[in-house]
């Protein structure tokens, strides 16, 4: 006689899952902290970065997947290497110095490439990196090499580069620098911008086969 088995009761399915590291979604912030950012702009920028951290932290998957790195200029300085937001403690930025955008972009791209290499060496999957430049001026250094690096990287689908101009930014130069159309920040709406960025990062870092870099509309914070 067949043994009696309760098909409703016997455990079915396990919670023992493969222990794969979460895929990572790198986000590189290149932030202008030159003298002209002093006062309200730098204060709003600092609060905006905090908003980014808080927003990403509240999302179960984004908090495990999105890694933020921060480079400030000038002079060019790595403020924070790639970390998931739980370990991202942005220092309060102060404004002084010039605007070496060329050097900051080159360093940012180099760090993104290194980060990908680290992922690959550790068997960690990753999403397309985003590089975000925020400036209220124009480059005070040679930016021809940076332009070429951005063009090559975008053409090879290595990263997505976005330039955001704050009031006073040389939008003509940003247009030449960035393959994507630069966007002009409305007033000092850094908070709205970083809310948009965190929502976009959540979208990028959630699984969506075949998704190209499809942006949320930059509503609210951009002068269109």
């Amino acid at each position, binding site marked *: 006689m*067949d043994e009696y*088995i309760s*098909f*409703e009761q*016997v*455990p*079915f*399915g*396990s*919670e*023992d*899952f*493969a*222990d*794969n590291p979460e*895929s990572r979604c790198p986000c590189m912030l290149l932030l202008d902290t030159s003298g002209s950012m002093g006062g309200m702009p730098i204060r709003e920028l600092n609060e905006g970065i905090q908003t980014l951290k808080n927003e990403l932290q509240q999302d*179960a*998957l984004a908090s495990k997947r999105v890694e933020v790195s921060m480079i400030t200029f000038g002079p060019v300085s790595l403020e924070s290497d790639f970390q998931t937001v739980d370990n991202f403690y942005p220092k309060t930025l102060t404004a002084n110095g010039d605007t070496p955008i060329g050097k900051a972009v080159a360093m940012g791209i180099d760090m993104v490439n290194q980060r990908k290499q680290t992922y690959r060496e550790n*068997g960690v*999957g*990753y*999403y*397309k990196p985003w590089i975000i430049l925020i400036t209220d001026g124009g480059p005070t250094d040679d930016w021809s090499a940076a332009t070429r690096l951005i063009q090559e990287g975008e053409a090879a*689908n290595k990263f997505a580069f976005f330039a955001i101009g704050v009031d006073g930014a040389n939008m003509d130069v940003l247009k030449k620098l960035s393959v994507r159309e630069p966007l002009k920040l409305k007033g000092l709406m850094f908070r709205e911008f970083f809310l948009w960025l965190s929502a976009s990062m959540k979208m*990028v870092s*959630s*699984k*969506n*086969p*075949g*998704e*190209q870099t*499809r942006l949320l509309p930059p509503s609210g914070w951009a002068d269109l």
Partner: protein
Amino acid sequence: MIWKVIGQSVIGTSHIQTGKTCEDASSFRIIPLDNDEEALVAFVSDGAGSAAFAARAAEEAVLKSIEFAATLVESESKFENGSIRALAEQVYDHIESLAMDEQVPKNEFSCTLLGFVLLSKKSIFLQIGDGAIITGDDDGFFTPVWWPHNGEYQNTTTFLIDDPNLPNLKIKVTDAPVREIALFTDGLQMLALNNETESVHQPFFEALFPLLRKATTSEHTSILNSRLIDYLSGNSINARTDDDKTLLLASRK
């Protein structure tokens, strides 16, 4: 009843949040053969998140694949590479015609496609895009038919409709019979496969197959089939993946 099969496609939490439907699809058919044998045909598909008609593409790709494969089985096809490729081309043509009817670019119907045809003395596997097919040996040890390869980025893969020449179509035909097999879409890949060692995470399947092995009636499989929905939509799985997920399991007596 030779083949015992259960399979479900369950919506992911990110799709619920964004008001999307489930864009995975799965289906199977058991075809009686001579000598009291049975052929088992099964396909699953994952519609691309960016495609407007992802759900319909996945559904149609799966149903058409089953229909065409069943026709091959019934016509006693030898299932050589050519006939299997022709099957995939027919599905491609069907999906392309749907896009034409809707007057949208064909990539609005992007979806992956993977499945198998199991005969008593022949096993046929095919796959385009991510997701995985794994088979169990007599000791209940599971190995992937192919290791799934995404593009450089985690959220990119290849789709049936990408290219009429189907350059990314993988086909495998063996004379080895299969006793146990599982098909799943990429939503479960991170849970069921170990990336570092490129191996199947055995405990995932060891907690599912034993009960299916013991099923002897259609009532048993139907209970397990509804328990599979509970499992796939449960908190433990949703904590690890927000994507749609499909799992189909088959075990033969």
